């Protein structure tokens, strides 16, 4: 761990300005990801701005019937919130399927969105990694890449985003509220928060220097039933090999509304417009679900160990859709 200086943020704008003022400064909240990476010198901030005590820990109703989730709401609180459990059950399911109870108690909402990949080559400072050292190469390609991306990856990087929560929020059309160092606020759809790697896998999101997430807002719950299904190598405390966040509304045997997002398959939470398109206004049933699964994975590529994920993701999608429409 590099030596670093530390300050406790006194206000939202001050926090953003403090990080913007120093190129190697970072926000720290729960620290569940950042501290580990600092010990490995994967992250090497020279200055930490502690935002964990900022007044961003409330979950409030919005006027349109949605929820406003403060950036510092711990994952455990968000998962347990009665409004989340009843109106956005897939978000609660996603949160509870992630990490351990101890980590969920500590991890913040914004920190969860911005956690770094678990690619073991990224996490090993001795290995080439374009995300860590641009231009050094990608050791995961041709290496042990069983947990890597099948969608949205590039020659430069095949790492996946590890969050469960973000996948659920993506299916819910969440919006991310931020504050910029000059005090202006802005809002961006969650789908625009993360970037695909392309040639610049070290750039992971579209936030400006010092820009700080202050909240995530959920629009009113979409009509239909919700489900988060996570497939993993053990029953707890394992990252998703494939996960599905799905919302489906069926009326008169036809699909009126479908939202499909996947985790564990791409460098960012993966909203599948292809699957949603394939489901729109189709008869609820296995044939439509198979078509949606094929559409969702039509651009998938799996070289090496990860190849199994393509079929696994299709199975997970078909099954999730079937489970959501038991009495179609």
């Amino acid at each position, binding site marked *: *761990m*590099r*030596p670093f200086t530390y300050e406790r943020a006194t206000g939202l704008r001050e926090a953003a300005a403090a990080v913007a003022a120093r190129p190697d400064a970072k926000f720290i909240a729960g620290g569940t990801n950042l501290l580990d990476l600092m*010990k*490995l*010198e994967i992250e090497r901030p020279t200055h930490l701005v502690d935002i964990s005590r900022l007044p961003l820990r409330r979950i409030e109703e919005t006027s349109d019937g949605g929820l406003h989730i403060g950036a510092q709401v711990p994952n455990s609180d968000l998962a347990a919130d009665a409004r989340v459990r009843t109106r956005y059950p897939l978000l609660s399911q996603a949160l509870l399927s992630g990490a351990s109870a101890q980590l969920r108690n500590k991890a913040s909402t914004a920190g969860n969105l911005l956690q770094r990949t*678990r690619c*073991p*080559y990224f*996490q*090993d*400072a*001795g*290995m080439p990694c374009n995300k860590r050292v641009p231009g050094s190469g990608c*050791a995961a390609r*041709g*290496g*042990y890449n*069983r947990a890597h991306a099948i969608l949205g990856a590039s020659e430069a990087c095949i790492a996946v985003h590890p969050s469960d929560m973000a996948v659920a929020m993506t299916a819910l059309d969440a919006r991310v509220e931020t504050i910029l160092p000059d005090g202006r606020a802005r809002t961006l759809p969650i789908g625009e928060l993360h970037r695909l790697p392309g040639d610049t896998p070290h750039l992971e999101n579209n936030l400006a220097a010092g820009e700080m997430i202050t909240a995530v807002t959920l629009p009113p719950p979409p009509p239909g039933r919700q489900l988060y299904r996570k*497939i*993993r*190598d*053990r*029953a*707890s*405390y*394992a*990252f998703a*090999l494939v996960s599905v966040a799905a919302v489906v509304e069926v009326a008169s045997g036809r699909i009126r509304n479908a939202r499909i997002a996947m985790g564990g398959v791409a460098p960012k939470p993966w909203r599948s417009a292809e699957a949603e398109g394939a489901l729109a206004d189709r008869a609820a049933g296995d044939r439509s679900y198979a078509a949606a699964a094929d559409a969702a994975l039509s651009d998938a590529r799996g070289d090496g160990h990860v190849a*199994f994920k393509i*079929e*696994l993701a299709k*199975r*997970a999608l*078909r*099954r999730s859709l*079937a489970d959501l429409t038991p009495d179609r």
Partner: protein
Amino acid sequence: MTSDPIVQATAGAAPGARIGQPVDRIDGILKVTGRATYGYEHRIGRAPAHGCILGASIARGRILEIDVREAERAPGVILVMTHRNAPDQPEFGAAVTATVPEVFTRARPVLASERVRYHDEPVALVVAESFEEARHAARLIRLRYETEPGAFDPVAPDAEIYRPGRTNAGFPTDSEHGDFEGAFSVAPVQIDASYRTPFESHNPMEPHAAIAEWEGDRLTVHTATQTVANIQAGLASTLRVPPENIRIVSPFIGGGFGAKLILHPETICAALAARVLNRPVKVALTRQQMFANAGHRPAMRQRVRLGADRDGRLTAIGHEVLASTARFEEFAEQSAVPTRALYAAPNRRTTHRLIRLDTNRGEWMRAPGEASGLLALECAIDELAERLGLDPIALRIRNEPERDPELGVPFSSRNLVACMRVGAERFGWRDRPLRPGSRREGRWLIGYGMAAAIRGNYLGPGSARVAIDAAGQVTVQADMTDIGTGTYTILAQVAAERLGVPLDAIRVMLGDSRLPRTAGSGGSWGATSSATAVHNACLALRQRIATAAASHAASPLRGSNAIEAHFADGALRLGARSESLERLLARIAPEGLAAEGSAVRGETYRTYSQHAFGAHFAEVAVDIDSGEARLRRMLGVFAAGRILNPKTARSQLIGGMVWGVGAALMEETVLDRRHGHFVNHDLAEYHVPVHADIPDVDVMFVPEEDDKGNPLGAKGIGELGNCGAGAAVANAVYNATGVRVRDFPITLDKIFPGLAAG
């Protein structure tokens, strides 16, 4: 120096506790209140400096340049040690030692040359005032290497295969009885199956750690080890110091599983730096460093061939093991050795072959031999049972041997059949789905599996000292360790019973090389060997007390016949007269009395085949779409001699069974075939079963006493739990799905392609 660690039952706790009673751990309160000190935690007189090891980022080659200037200037840094300035050490020497014990006593130099033999091998040690400063400075060291091509593929088709001269623990490399090839080729029913078992890592919760302090030419090391004598001997050779000048202290160990049997780099680094600095130095391996530097189970391909007649009688058993080893030091896990004793068949072959890789050496990982070997053999037996249309238990009973099928000597005791029958009844084996893939509950496919357990019963020579003072307080001393198994407790129980005193009158001191030498905790022999030594020491002490009581001028029992001594309820009865030990000792031996006892291998060690046995039963559920396999319940039934403490024994066996679940379903250390490093080197990526994976595990014992192994009639149990446990789970996965995966671990990607898409 810290005060000597003493473990004693709370006053009044379980006063009637004896051998065979489920006594609570007498060290339990120390542990749960944080007063049990582990390797890195001991407080010593002078504040230690903190060391941090930097490992090589190549797997084979040499260091061309090492620039430590920036590291030396970093805040808090006291010393940067590399091969250029480390104290001179002996050469490592040949890959194979002349004898088995020399594996433990040979010098193991670190930072001794520019050569890199495996990825993450230490290339520098930074010592600083704080651990954080040392770790930071280690990252400032600049290295330039010349990389040489290495061998990193344990299943490379073109790899050079060689025959080792012996296996681990000195077993013969091969065995051949009758005409295996001939009998197999004409067998009416044949199974010829190859299984792949991966590298695995022990991952004890406590990382390897040491605090080294020199006083003149005498060294004290506080560390975490299973066998203090091995660390003492290895350090003596490496540092060129007489063993008697080295004291090893290891009272509490946070798990070992075989990873803490031998000297590792952190201890040598601490000792070298402490000598250079004339200041205590502490060094621990990080979790990541443990994967390369603290041992692993070798990767293997195992071919099992079984020939049987149509009634299921085996005519030929073949088990051929091909395993990885390190180029610089051989380790040949004896995975075909259990096959030599488990089933009868007139024609037999077992072999062990090795492929040299540029990794660190393999080490003894819980049940070396059985853990990996039975994964293959006990799955192959299951495959044979299916081919024959026989119940797997009936097949095993049909091939139960009368005598050890290769040694030709009788078994000291063998109750495998009883374990299978008792287990079948308790588990509800009759409800097993007869046709694989035929039982479905919701989205889950349900399957049952079973497998036999066998584990050699060994005795490690050693001794113990038992003393009683004039207050009637008994002290048991040995350099034996308690690696979480319950040694403190069972030794107290043995002494309490043999001396007829309450448990809370016993103090136990372990894990210090100044105490009588034992073989430590390894090979499951710790409990029986050290308990035997304590038993014999108690008998000698009783003799001493009785003789003095019968003859001492001040004894109220004077003139009695010492032969008729009876020790019970804290008193000695000689003939018709009785006196409390406290009053008696105060009169006849105010300074107290002590005696030593030993454990030695007797004639029966050779003339009987000694093993513990068991039967595992598992029920799993496999998701019909994803192939996710989850344990539902598991039962292990064991015949392991006299159970000294059913509570601690049960914990040991449950722990072993959980290891079996891990080996079957999730554990694998992945070696990168280009860079030669273990890729998934932390506990997020190396999966061991967690609570949610282990819903219901039950253990039963079949009553057994075995008078051939030791005077207590006990057998070792530390490894028995994970012998065959993985095969039972694997067989259950097959029963659930009809998909036979021979490539461990059985992860979902290997199962679901065989399941019809849902």
